Each structure stands twice: as structure tokens, then as C-alpha cells.
């Protein structure tokens, strides 16, 4: 049963998963190549760190995109058929949801592992200046947690009815529109920044997406 659910999800999202997996593998390598640290003459940490940091924003975006891809493709086809086929299968709804969720998780192992391999390869390719260290395992773990968080959250939203998903989107849009109106009216009221800070800094739930995503750091 699980194998078949996994297979359907692979059919729906396989191309996308392959694409993000390649991106995840290449990204760490690209980071060190762009930073020029494969060049043995580069031993200045003050120049190296900003160059590595330049790419750090791509990791959380890739994690978010990967989670989004796996979460939405898990439900798109059932939504299209108004869940009639899924609901007519002889298993409790919670079990079906769990199977779909688990199948998505299995698929997400691929980009996470490839990012880990890419990070380790990039670390071995790199001449690291004294005082700096490579963190391929930590980077991969952080990527895995961010993907897990993004996937879980978006899976829950996309598993709900279109109306529920609409409510979530509406709340976000209204918030940004209100902020824009305040700004146009010359008000200094800031709705978005404090909320963003609450969510993105400890103990905010999305803290994992913030901070430094550094393959090489002090």
C-alpha cells in the first residue's frame, strides 16, 4: 500500500524532486567555487566569509521550495478529483493522510542527502584558512529540518479544503495590504516586521529559516 502511494507521489513530483536534488547537490559546490576557495592561494578569512555568506540565502529558499513542491504535489491530484477516489479506498482517513505524508518525507530524503553529499564534497575541495571550519553535516541537518518544517506546514495547509487554504492566504495578503496602507498614510505603525521577527527568531517556529547558513564559518 505504502509502496503504491510512494510510487504515485514519485510520478507526480519526480521531475521536480530531481531538479531540486540537483540544485541541492550543486549549491554547496557552487558556493565554494564562486568564493574561489578551491584556489590554494586564498587564505584570507575576512574575504572568504562574505563570499560564502553571499550564497547563504539560497539554502532556506531552496528548502522552502522543496517542501512546497512535495506538499502541493501530494494533494493536487486528490483535490482535482474532489477526494472521491481517495475517500472510497478502504482505510481510515488519518491513515491515508499519514501514508501520503510519509511518502512525501521519503522523497525529500533525496535532496537532503544530495545536499549533504554536495556539502561534504565542497568541503573536501576547499582550502580552508586557519581559524575557519567546514560544517557540511550541520548545514545538511539544518537544511533537512527546514525542509521538514516547510513540508509539514504546507502539507497541512494543502491537505485542507481550498477554502481553508484561501483563509490562510487571505490573512497573509490582508496583513501586507494593511502595512502598505499604513505606509501610504504616513503612519509609522509596523505590523509585518514584529510578526516576522517573532516567527523568525527564537523561539519562533520559523527560526530555522533565519540566521547564517554557512558551509564554512568560524
Amino acid at each position, binding site marked *: *500500500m505504502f509502496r503504491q502511494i510512494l510510487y504515485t507521489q514519485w510520478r507526480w513530483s519526480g521531475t521536480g524532486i530531481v531538479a531540486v536534488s540537483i540544485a541541492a547537490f550543486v549549491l554547496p559546490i557552487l558556493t565554494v567555487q564562486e568564493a574561489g576557495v578551491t584556489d590554494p592561494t586564498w587564505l584570507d578569512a575576512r574575504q572568504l566569509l562574505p563570499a560564502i555568506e553571499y550564497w547563504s540565502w539560497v539554502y532556506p529558499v531552496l528548502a522552502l521550495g522543496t517542501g512546497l513542491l512535495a506538499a502541493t504535489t501530494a494533494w493536487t491530484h486528490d483535490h*482535482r*478529483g474532489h477526494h*472521491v*477516489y481517495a*475517500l*472510497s479506498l*478502504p*482505510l481510515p482517513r488519518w491513515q491515508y493522510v499519514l501514508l501520503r505524508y510519509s511518502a512525501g518525507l521519503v522523497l525529500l530524503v533525496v535532496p537532503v542527502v544530495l545536499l549533504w553529499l554536495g556539502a561534504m564534497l565542497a568541503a573536501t575541495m576547499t582550502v580552508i584558512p586557519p581559524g575557519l571550519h567546514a560544517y557540511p553535516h550541520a548545514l545538511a541537518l539544518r537544511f533537512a529540518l527546514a525542509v521538514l518544517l516547510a513540508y509539514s506546514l504546507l502539507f497541512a495547509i494543502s491537505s485542507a479544503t481550498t477554502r481553508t487554504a484561501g483563509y490562510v492566504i487571505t490573512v497573509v495578503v490582508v496583513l501586507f495590504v494593511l502595512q502598505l496602507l499604513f505606509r501610504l498614510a504616513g503612519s509609522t505603525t509596523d505590523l509585518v516586521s514584529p510578526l516576522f521577527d517573532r516567527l523568525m527568531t527564537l523561539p519562533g517556529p520559523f527560526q530555522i529559516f533565519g540566521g547564517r547558513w554557512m558551509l564554512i564559518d568560524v
Partner: protein
Amino acid sequence: MSNAIETKHLHRTMGKDFEIRDLSLSVPSGSIYGFLGPNGSGKTTTVRLLLGLLRPGGGSIAVLGRPIPSDVPRVLARTGYVPERPQLYGMLTVAEAMRYHAAFYSTWEERRAEDLTARFGLRPGLRISRLSKGETGKLMMLLSLAQSPDLLVLDEPTDGLDPVVRREVLSALLDYVSQRDATIFISSHLVHELERICDWVGVMDAGRLVAEMPMQTFKNGIKRLRVADAPSLVSDTPFVLLARETGDGLAGGEVWVVRGWQDPMKQYFEGVGARLREVVDLDLEEGFVELLRTFRKPGA
């Protein structure tokens, strides 16, 4: 005789304008039950309630002896379902869809699936999104039959199919029933189709059950009578008078449409000073139309 499906005082509101009201159905085990009704009468909603796809607002449902919705997975494991609009995953091929479906049913019969694939002329490697309407209908029927169900719930299974495909699908269905003592609940507005295969009939209109009886009783019981010298007031009839109209070409005569007719009832007309000139059998479609026409009369 036990019932494969039994609902009591079932109620469900759908939006602002439609509700299933006080629906009490009894589908005998082993029967082929035709669930008739015009479009929008509540057939699909009823089917979805029976299978636990919708939750009832009130009343009770028992399918294969188990309560719905609390025991839905066990019931669905023994039930084949062909929905009104097939909702299979379009990206899968026919063979993949069969493997996927089979994974959920311990009773899946691979041999039957292979036989039906050949019989229906389905190409296993073809994507579902590229199947014609007829092929999709055949595939749905194949999936339902290959899981060897005790109950088949078919919601307009042949709607929109050409006569050749319709015949193939129904023929496979009847073959299955002849091999197993399965119950079939088939919802349709194609009256002639049900007339040929069903032994029980239930008629829905506007969310209510208008009639439920053996097909033979339904067909035999509804008659068109040509009556001369009919009394202006009619009461205490031994049959149910569904409709009464001035007959064409009958001087002073009337046409009565009645339900529950039996030959000895002819004596009634002598008693009221009328003359029964002719008793005309109605086919199921005519009976169905007359039944609905009466039901929709104000005060019915």
C-alpha cells in the same frame, strides 16, 4: 431476507436549497437494486452518504450489516464503487492504476482483472488521461469487479457511454453477479437500462424516496385505465389513483393512471357505475414519469 443496505430516516442538508429528507431505504441482499430519479433528485448525495463520503445530518445507515460512517473502512473493503465522474489519477497508466487499486484490497483477483482487461480491450500502457470516456468507464468497472466485492455501488455507471460500451459494461456486471451472490445498487436516470437488469427499484425525487418495491410489482402495478362514465368524485379506491385526465378520442371517457392494480379490482368500477374499457400496461419509464408527476402535484 437481510438487507445489504438499510437507511432509516436519513437526513442531510446540501447547501441552502437541497436536502435529503427522511430517507428510509431497504436494499435486499443479493438483489440488483435500481435507484431511479431525475437529475438533481439526490441520488449521488445518497450514494455518498451510503459510502461514508458524506456525513449524515440525522438518521442511521447500515451497509453490509455495519454502521456508517463509524465502520466505513471495513464496509469499503467489501464494496466496489463506480462514481458518477471517474476520479482516477490521470498521470497513471491503466496497469499502474490497477496495481495501485489492488494494493488496497486483500480480495483483489488478478486473474479477473486480466480477463476484464482483455474483454474490455484496455491497453495497459495507456495513460488514464488519454482514455476515452468509454474506456474510463470500463476501467472503473474493471477495478470494482476485480476487487471481488460483496456490494457494488454504481452511480450512473453508463451515463454518456455509447450503446456498445454500455452493453459490454452491463454484461460484465451481470456475469459477475451470476458467479457471486453480490448485491448491486445502481443509480441511474436511464430507466430502460434498469428495467432490463434490476429486480428491485427505488425512486427518488427532490431528496425524498417516492417509492420502493420489487421491479415486477412496479411494472405490473402501474396501469393506465380507460374509464367511461367515471364518477366526478372518487373515494375508497382499492388502488392508488396517481393521475386522472380526460382521455383523447373517448367521448366522456377518462384516462386514469393507477398504482397497485390487480385484475379483481375491475369490480370497483361496476360498484360506482363506471365502465372499465381498457387496462394498458405501462413500461417502467412511463410508470416512472407518472409516479413523479403525481408526487410533484401540490399537496402530494
